[in-house]
């Protein structure tokens, strides 16, 4: 069974060393050796999840710049030694990640290398589903964060705020689909309101209609009525709450940076968001990769730098942990269109004042491949388990349906 594979590979997780001074003794402690959840975890901790949609090419993100094999298989799209932002004598950041590199130098970025899972899926949709439901082997109706929320608010408990968990986008990602916690999707602050102009009686009547809406024959009707109630009341609440918070950093105008600016408001105001899902894409670089990926990585790194400057100015940077993910990495060799096709393992980033910065896990070998693809060394569910137990203070096993050895980045 696959369980053996990921346990043994997760046990190989080791600190490669080099620059992260605070990153010592970061070896996984085997299975289920975590402290009892809830004991030492601040209930005010916040998780921000960044989806890098489309399949981010890991080798041009965390670049094995000293490996000749890398330059050999990517003649037209490699990051050269003069371009790379070196982290140690083996790897470095894509130069577009200069904002992230500043955070890294401050010890606030954990780079988790070679993240994946057994029998990787190369379909965007299925792989995204796998990552967002944390379930490679069988379909799961609810997302990994949705299941966390369901456990946290079990037995009819209500979140203190309806913005406890939010998705900043027009559609709810699979990760946040929960069975009994409603997660709002907020495309933009000013659009999140029931607007009737001067006709306040119409607005009031809409509230009466939604509050009194009945379930019916279709299972959809109860769902629509409940969502209408949340939407109707939520807009007014949200605007009042977020007005309390002023961003104290300059964010770029791109959509991702603007999502982070709103995330800071949701976290720092009485909206009190504890889970925020943001997204950036598309990283599906089958052709002309360098221009497209570098632009997006620039948005990512610079956006996160602004975000943490803002949070620090409000004294919140140690309360907020941000992790990235993408549905898969890409093939080792470039294709004929100066791009890369769908691949497997990739690095992800965990950022925050409460993060033990450094490099975690093995960089995948570029010569020991699985049919031209990288082999993973860290199961992505070990990253989730670490975040759930050590940052959010819940038992990861009850969310993930299995024990996964934690990493030491928190």
């Amino acid at each position: 069974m696959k369980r053996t594979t990921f346990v043994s590979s997760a046990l190989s997780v080791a600190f490669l060393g080099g620059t992260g001074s605070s990153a010592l003794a970061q070896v996984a402690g085997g299975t289920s050796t975590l402290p009892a959840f809830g004991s030492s975890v601040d209930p005010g901790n916040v998780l921000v999840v960044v989806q890098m949609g489309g399949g981010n090419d890991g080798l041009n993100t965390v670049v094995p710049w000293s490996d000749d094999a890398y330059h050999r298989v990517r003649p037209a799209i490699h990051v050269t030694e003069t371009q790379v932002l070196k982290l140690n004598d083996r790897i470095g950041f894509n130069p577009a990640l200069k904002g992230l590199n500043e955070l890294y130098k401050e010890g606030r970025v954990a780079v988790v290398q070679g993240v994946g899972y057994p029998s990787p899926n190369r379909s965007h949709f299925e792989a995204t589903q796998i990552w967002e439901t944390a379930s490679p082997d069988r379909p799961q109706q609810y997302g990994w964060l949705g299941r966390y929320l369901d456990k946290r608010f079990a037995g009819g408990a209500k979140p203190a705020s309806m913005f406890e968990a939010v998705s900043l986008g027009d559609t709810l990602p699979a990760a946040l689909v929960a069975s009994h916690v409603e997660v709002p999707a907020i495309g933009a602050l000013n659009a999140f309101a029931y607007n009737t102009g001067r006709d306040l009686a119409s607005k009031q009547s809409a509230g009466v209609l939604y509050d009194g809406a009945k379930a019916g024959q279709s299972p959809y009707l109860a769902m629509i009525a409940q969502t209408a109630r949340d939407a109707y009341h939520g807009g007014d609440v949200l605007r009042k709450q977020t007005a309390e918070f002023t961003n104290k950093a300059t964010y770029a105008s791109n959509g991702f940076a603007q999502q982070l600016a709103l995330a800071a408001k949701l976290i720092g105001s009485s909206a009190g968001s504890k889970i925020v899902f943001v997204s950036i894409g598309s990283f599906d670089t089958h052709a002309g990769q360098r221009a497209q990926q570098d632009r997006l990585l620039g948005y990512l790194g610079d956006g996160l730098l602004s975000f943490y400057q803002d949070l620090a100015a409000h004294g919140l940077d140690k309360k907020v942990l941000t992790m990235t993910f993408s549905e898969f990495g890409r093939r080792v060799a470039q294709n004929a269109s100066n791009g890369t096709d769908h691949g497997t393992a990739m690095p992800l980033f965990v950022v925050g004042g409460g993060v033990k910065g450094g490099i975690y896990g093995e960089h995948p070998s570029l010569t020991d491949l699985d049919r031209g693809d990288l082999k993973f060394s860290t199961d992505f569910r070990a990253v989730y388990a670490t975040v759930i137990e050590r940052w959010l203070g819940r038992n990861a096993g009850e969310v993930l349906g299995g024990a996964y050895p934690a990493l030491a980045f928190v």
Partner: protein
Amino acid sequence: MPDVKIDTSTDPQVGFRPPGTLVAATALQPYSGRFGQRHAAHLLRRAGFGGSEADVARVAALGMSGAVDSLLHPTAPDADFPPYPDVAVLYDPKKNRQAAQLWWLDRMLRTNRPLVEKMTLFWHGHFATSVQKTQPAPMVGQINLFRQFALARFPALLSAVTRDPAMLIWLDNRANAKAHPNENYAREVMELFALGLGNYTEDDVKEAARAFTGWTIDKDRQAAFVPARHDDGIKTVLGTSGRFDADDVVAVIVSQPVHQRFLARKLLEFFVYSDPEPELVEALAQVYAVSGFDVARTVGTILRSNVFYSQRAYRAIPNSPIELAIGTLRYIGAQTVPANLPYQLARMGQEPLNPPSVKGWDGGPAWINTSTLLARFNFVNGLIAQTAPGKDGRPAVPAPNVAPDDMVRRAGMNAAKIAETIVAGVVQNDVTSDVRATLVAYLDSQTPSATVQNPLPLGPENYQDKIRGALALTLNLPVNQLD
């Protein structure tokens, strides 16, 4: 009955099957019951984009069979559409994505062949291609292709899609050559377009990709077959071997029972209800196979069937944002699409020509979240408000069916009768009595409240705005988010 294998692992509609029991034996037999206004409105919503009260009455008068025939085999010439937007102009992506979107939305609004346009939208969601990678002009070409093949035989459609310039760009088959195969298109043909996950192997993808080699685009972005790029060797796809080209692979794929179930299920989810029973899928798959993969005959069977007119199928599926928006515009009699509709549809979660991925829109429960519902409500509120002339002299957006004067002429200055007329027209009376009471209270509020300081009874000074307000409230009811 045969083993029905359909992968539903990523189908968000699983779990939203309506309660009750399918009568499998007669589900696809022709419906012979009463065909009234509610049946006609149901048919128009599912097989078109809804319509005005007059449209519903006209379809009801045709009877079920006549109504379905008129949708499947329209004889009258279509509305006159301009050769717009100019194709040369469309190559500037900065300005012209919206022009292409409005060009299509206008066709949805004004066509008198609504089922053809509805199937065009179905295929857009099925072969989901995005303007983000392809640019507007090839997307307009692809939409025209979907319209041409809207109700054709599926293999003809899939063959045409294989050599469609937008698709050649979108899934990289233009880069697929014997010397350097690109599997992207072959994989999605199997996973998303024709078979579904779990019904093919990685080797099938690789072999099919070889058969698709050679199809590319030339410098004018027209499809071109370059023999030197084609791999003309023997391929083995789904257990069948031969010196296959693209059309041969299409023929192998459609001959698979799993394909027939795959498409049957998707059509049932689109037209009937979520998560259809395996017996129903199997029965429609047989119809599809026996028809020679004829989409018109398959869809016709659905639209005439007992299950389509059953209580379980009635208002059983959330409408998509495009269905909601075009349905509302048709209901009020609008003849032009608001210029900002593409932007509003993006907020609602369905920007035409820009699906979130090649998987298309998930649909079902995924249409409904707090922000998409607010976007729907505010679209309606803004639209209906704009049908009144502005106090600043702004002209009203023409909407001949939003006619408070006609309403008062018919119903009198009587809040109860006006509310009755509105809920009958908008939602075919599919509301409970407390909804009517709330609408009456809104129309005729006489008691001061937190928001209504100086309430007025319904009268000459306020009926214009009140009737529009009650119309918007009714359009924004939860039940009107269901088709």
